[in-house]
């Protein structure tokens, strides 16, 4: 039996507005508990929500970037349930009339293929606070700093067929929200969280299987692993004659398994109804067009432009444009150095490796775009070889200054002086009598291979600084003269 996995994602993205969606309190992360919660966030009696128009604008930007319809009259509703970190006893959210309607995006997979994923809708809502269960001696602590932080919940259609597709979709969402600047997308701080609806069915079947919802996945790696392990659980269950139950499950990263949450929480009747404290959000066509006009260049458009303007391969262009900060960095290096292909290679190669090793984002890169461009310029003008360039790059990463400073200080400048190279070649030939004899006695077609030994010796003697093309030419001339 061949099984097919069907995945739909609900992604919660915290919007990077200065203040909360219905109050003036700050949304900054990491403050002391309850220092960023005002009377409205605490749901004090008589307080009322005042909508933050910036949150509406961010949601519209997102909708337009997802090629989605914009709800010109969206309505906030109350979702009623009791929980200590939900101060009003209801969450203000949207249900029947969301601000973003159906849309679609292209996702790019590692094998180079593309796929369209449909967006069901996206709506605005407020985040809840946090319950802290440690350090309170049998009680729970409540931190309402996060309560009222604006979220968009992005609901996909069940269009993904593998964990890899789900990750690619999520990366695309991440890419779009960070390109738009509407979220910092920081998953470690909960700025982007994901619930995955996973079901399985036999390949070729039309009807969807019963789904399980895996809650609160907060890293790309966990999402991939959680979906894989949940799909396998369902397949094993069915193959053993069991049935999948519709339920909410939690992923345990330590044990790499999903576990059922109490079903009581699923059986809630949320008693949604339109919030009488808030007017419907009415958006004019002019407003929507103005937001559209202000949209920045998005990843797909940037990718196409990089292919066309910089001659990058589709793969390279896609890699370099996944994150806006990377794309901006690349463009600066390409512009300053005039060598876009080299720039792309360095950004995806040495720079990516460095950042990965040091666990830094490109925004905090130890090597600036200007410095990298300077290095590439020295490769291009033959001041240094590519090999030496890596040495210079490491030095720049260690804070030793720009490429020229490092090359100068360490004396790494490439030797391109004919006389100097001739001398190096002569010295090596003189010291390698046996190898020269072998060369002379060898078949002509074997001789090019034998040159490697001499080149190695000459490079060694020059400490890697001799111009390799010049060595090759001068060496061949001199060896051939001995024939």
């Amino acid at each position, binding site marked *: 039996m061949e099984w097919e996995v069907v995945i739909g994602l609900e992604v919660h993205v915290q919007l990077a507005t200065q203040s909360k969606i219905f109050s003036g309190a700050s949304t900054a992360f990491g403050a002391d508990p309850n220092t960023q919660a005002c009377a409205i966030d605490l749901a004090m*009696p008589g307080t009322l929500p*005042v909508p933050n128009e910036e949150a509406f604008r961010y949601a519209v930007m997102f909708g337009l970037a997802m090629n989605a319809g914009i709800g010109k009259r969206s309505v906030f509703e109350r979702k009623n349930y009791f929980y200590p970190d939900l101060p009003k006893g209801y969450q203000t959210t949207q249900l029947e009339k969301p601000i973003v309607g159906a849309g679609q995006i292209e996702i790019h997979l590692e094998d180079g293929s593309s796929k369209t994923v449909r967006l069901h809708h996206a709506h605005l809502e407020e985040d809840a606070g946090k319950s802290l269960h440690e350090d309170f001696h049998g009680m729970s602590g409540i931190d309402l700093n996060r309560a009222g932080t604006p979220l968009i919940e992005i609901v996909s259609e069940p269009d993904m067929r593998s964990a890899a597709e789900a990750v690619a979709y999520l990366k695309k969402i991440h890419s779009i929200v960070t390109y738009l600047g509407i979220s910092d997308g920081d998953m470690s701080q909960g700025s982007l969280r994901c619930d995955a609806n996973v079901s399985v069915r036999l390949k070729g079947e039309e009807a969807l299987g019963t789904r399980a919802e895996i809650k609160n996945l907060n890293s790309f790696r966990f999402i991939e692993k959680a979906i894989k392990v949940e799909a396998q659980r369902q397949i094993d269950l069915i193959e053993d004659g069991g049935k999948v139950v519709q339920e909410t499950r939690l992923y345990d990263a330590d044990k790499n398994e999903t576990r059922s949450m109490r079903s009581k929480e699923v059986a809630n009747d949320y008693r949604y109804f339109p919030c009488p404290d808030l007017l419907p959000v009415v958006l004019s066509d002019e407003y929507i067009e103005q937001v559209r006009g202000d949209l920045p260049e998005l990843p797909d458009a940037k990718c196409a432009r990089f292919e066309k303007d910089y001659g990058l391969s589709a793969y390279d262009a896609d890699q370099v444009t996944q994150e806006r900060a990377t794309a901006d960095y690349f463009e600066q290096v390409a512009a300053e150095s005039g060598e876009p292909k080299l720039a792309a290679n360095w950004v995806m190669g040495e720079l990516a490796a460095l950042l990965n090793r040091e666990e830094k984002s490109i925004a905090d890169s130890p090597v600036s775009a200007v410095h990298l461009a300077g290095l590439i310029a020295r490769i291009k003008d033959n001041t240094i070889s590519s090999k030496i360039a890596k040495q210079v790059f490491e030095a720049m990463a260690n804070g030793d200054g720009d490429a020229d400073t490092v090359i100068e200080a360490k004396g790494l400048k490439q030797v391109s002086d004919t006389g100097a190279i001739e001398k190096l070649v002569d010295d090596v030939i003189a010291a390698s009598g046996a190898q020269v004899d072998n060369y002379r006695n060898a078949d002509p077609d074997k001789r090019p291979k034998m040159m490697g030994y001499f080149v190695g010796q000459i490079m060694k003697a020059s400490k890697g600084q001799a111009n390799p093309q010049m060595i090759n030419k001068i060496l061949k001339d001199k060896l051939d003269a001995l024939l």
Partner: protein
Amino acid sequence: MHQLTIAEIIRGLRDRQFSSVEITSHLLERIQQLDGHYNSFITVTGEQALAQAAAADARLAAGDAPALCGVPIAHKDIFCTNGVRTSCGSKMLDNFVPPYDATVVDNFQQAGAVSLGKTNMDEFAMGSSNESSFYGAVKNPWDLARIPGGSSGGSAAAVAAQLVPGTTATDTGGSIRQPAAMTGTTGLKPTYGRVSRWGMIAFASSLDQGGPIARTAEDAALMLSVMASSDSKDSTCLDRPQQDYTASLNDSIAGLKIGVPREYFGEGLDGEVGARVQEALKQYEALGAELVEISLPHSKLAVPAYYVIAPAEASANLSRFDGVRYGYRCENPADLRDLYMRSRGEGFGEEVKRRILVGTYALSAGYYDAYYNKAQQIRRLIKQDFVDAFQKVDVIMGPTAPNPAFKLGEKNADPVAMYLEDIYTIATNLAGLPGMSLPCGFAHGLPVGLQIIGNYLDETRMLNAAHQFQQATNWHQQTAPAAE
């Protein structure tokens, strides 16, 4: 001094006939001596009132007096007052001291008014008799064995007993107009959105509206001129600045077209009450107005629609009272569920619990369409009735309540009979229209209220009609016997 109207107090203060400290002290003494009979105040803020009065006197002396400078008032205990306990008539908030002022409270402070304290009310404004207050029932100054109406019973009784010349109140289904009618006072519920709801503890957000209770239409106009403002803190508050509602009080009402809805004079209306209202209408004819019979065909549906919508909204609005952050918390909760169940079970009274249950039921899966959606449809029909009527008439008049004040305890066993007391007032809340009640005589020895319903934002015309009636009659000048 306690017999003076707000208009008279303003003149007296400016003419130096008396000081704000003098009248404030006088009224505080009266409250202390007499309110044991009425129970119209939950909290009296004597010290603070005298400090405000002294400050007002200084401003009066300096010639820097805003509109209501030095005028004593009191706030219904539903309006949050910075530093002063705001209970909403509930055990749940018996210990609640807000760190902020309601916009209404702030507006009166800006206008220089002196607040004597917080008036009693039905718990969370749920009631028509002021018997559901955690602080005990309020007695009607006209007959201490009778209710003063509700939910703003304390605000109405305090004015009727001449403890204070004007009070703030709120009206969700008649809670200003019905107690005004039953206590012989003049009460006004503005157009929905005209008065900010910021800091006014919510019962049913789409219906709640603050307004004044006073002795005369002129006083109500003076208070409304201060109360009604735009407010960026309330999204549903209309974007209109304060305005002078006294400007047109003295205009002639000759030619005013008064709609008289036949549905407001049918079954259930006390005969004497009906007779007083008819006499008032005759008086209007004498003043040159024209009576036009109209129909509001969906009137009968107002009470059932209201008792779905208001409890539905209330069920969510009152969820915040969970014992977690402020207000009543039960002793030694065993766990979270116990904390919720006992805090709410012990903190709320019977009527509040009844409405939370009704509202929760109406919003439940499977019942939402049959109740909440159907009620919203009815609400639109009721609104359309009024829109159609106002094509033909300038104002609508009828009785405020079907009966005069009933006896304490009389309707406690029968919630539906109690709900029917608001049969003539509820429709205006559902439609969002302004309405007022003014005294128009007596039935069975008790005050009767004439209700005036105005078109949207047409409070000026409504007040003009009320003031002209009060110029021609003296019903509003009758004082309750116990207050003598």
